[in-house]
């Protein structure tokens, strides 16, 4: 009997062991390695070695503050835009979707079965200066010939909004789906008008979805470089583009590692403050 309960106590550790080992070896250890690489000095020909050179951090913040701020700014715009776009839709599907709920959800997910790169290139085709959309409008004289969307912040933000929309729509749906319609009726019975019902009942109950959706949107957007690379121009370089260039083109590993670490630290700090602002207890359950 004693042996059995002993085994029972070990079971959860045995179950989690392989996955935890994997994440330790290939998530935790790499993060530590990256942090240590950021203090190395040298060049790609002679190799890099650890010298405790912390100035890479100050140099980086000096030279790339513009790209950091742009990533933050794009992240905020895209998160807000996606929240505004998807909220009415998720609300309607969750509360009024009836039997077709799953159909609508799958319709939202279906476009994302096509690879990210192909979808983004498709936008490049649509937004092209002489493409099917702008080209036609120019031919019939609605837009001046010089008008362009590609290589502007608008194109990058539009691409980001498109690509990360489901990351907001689904958590919102999950939160709103748990909302009991009886609560809304109760609010109305207690003489709330539509706006009051929304502000005092719907929104607070949707908050965990807003929180999860904002994180799932903001984090990948702030780190993205594909949209800026394919749809943007010289004025839309994001911090992800800088990291990619330092690591894959310049092979400057310490620099790339330092920027990555700053990005990661900034995001974790942001998540922490955001969770505090919204009230962690309620969000994490």
């Amino acid at each position, binding site marked *: 009997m004693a042996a059995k309960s002993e085994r029972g106590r070990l079971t959860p550790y045995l179950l*989690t062991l392989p996955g935890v080992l994997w*994440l330790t070896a290939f998530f935790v250890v790499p993060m530590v390695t990256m942090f240590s690489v950021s203090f190395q000095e040298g060049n790609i020909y002679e190799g890099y070695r650890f010298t405790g050179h912390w100035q890479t951090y100050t140099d980086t913040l000096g030279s790339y503050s513009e790209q950091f701020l742009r990533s933050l700014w794009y992240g905020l715009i895209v998160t807000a835009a996606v929240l505004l776009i998807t909220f009415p839709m998720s609300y309607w599907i969750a509360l009024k979707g009836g039997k077709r709920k799953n159909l609508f959800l799958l319709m939202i997910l279906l476009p994302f079965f096509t690879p990210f790169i192909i979808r983004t290139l498709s936008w490049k085709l649509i937004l092209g200066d002489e493409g099917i959309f702008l080209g036609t409008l120019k031919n019939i004289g609605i837009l001046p010939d010089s008008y362009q969307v590609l290589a502007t912040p608008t194109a990058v933000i539009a691409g980001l909004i498109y690509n990360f929309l489901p990351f907001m729509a689904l958590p919102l749906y999950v939160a709103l789906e748990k909302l009991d319609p009886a609560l809304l009726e109760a609010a109305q019975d207690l003489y709330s008008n539509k706006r009051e019902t929304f502000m005092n009942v719907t929104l607070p109950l949707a908050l965990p979805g807003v929180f999860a959706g904002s994180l799932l949107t903001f984090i990948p957007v702030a780190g993205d470089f594909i949209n800026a690379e394919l749809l943007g121009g010289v004025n839309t370089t994001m911090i992800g583009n800088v990291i990619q260039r330092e690591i*894959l083109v310049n092979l400057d590993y310490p620099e790339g590692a330092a920027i990555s670490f700053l990005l990661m630290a900034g995001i974790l700090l942001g998540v922490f403050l955001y969770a505090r602002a919204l009230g962690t207890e309620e969000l994490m359950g």
Partner: protein
Amino acid sequence: MATTTERIARREPIDATAPPQKPRKRRKEWLLPAYTGLVIAYLFVPIAIMILFGFNNPAGRYNFQWEGFTLKWYNPTTLLEYEDLNDALINSLTVAIVSTLIATALGTLIALALTRHRFRGRSSLNLGLFLPMASPEVVLGVSLLALFVSINVPLGLVTIIIAHIMFSISFVVVTVKARTSGFDHNLEDAAGDLGADPWTAFWTVTFPLIFPGILAAGLLVFALSIDDYVITSFNAGGATTIPLWVYGASRIGVPPQVNVMGTLLFSLGLLYVIVSLWRGRKAEALAPPVGKG
């Protein structure tokens, strides 16, 4: 709700400029569904363009302007014309299949431990699983590369697979947990009371019940893996996958073959949607009609 008649009965002042309630309600009823339809249509715009340009007949590789309708890219010999694209396809499928199998197994085990057992370190594990999902892909890619370079691991398919398993485990745990948390433990106890040993009880009772969750997690990992560009680009070395090949090709023009492959992937997704809706309908028909809220 106070209707006009009630107000008259209570001698309350009636706001004559307020629109009557009924038509206003009517107007709102079509507004949200129409809006939802518009957003969904918007999501399909680039897909429609991708499919359309898979039927385009451009002179060279520059598939940018509509030149005329053709079906020739759907011919297997022209579809598989670029050997490096075929290699990329095979690599993508290999990576996706191997990562799906391993990540789903590792993640399911963690999900089972989290939902069925209380143990020390449970909440830190939950937080630890959240971290890879909260890290930007570019950081995950760079940190893994830093590790591989530091310990001189040659980059290639193996490092891509290691990376894909790493970023997928948390997603598997979340997906399977959603399924196992509603699980009725009495069923397992019942199996035990009927003389089944824990192993038999697991395979005959628990596993079939959580299998839909495992399947959903597996599909998610497959989709994440086949789609990934960012992390892969840092850990691929000389190996290419479909996203890497397409990205490289985008500088000189993406050939229509890529549109066709994208269309085929999309059709697989469509097939999955149709099958799951059909199965859902069947399950609904079989389920007792009571208690549906």
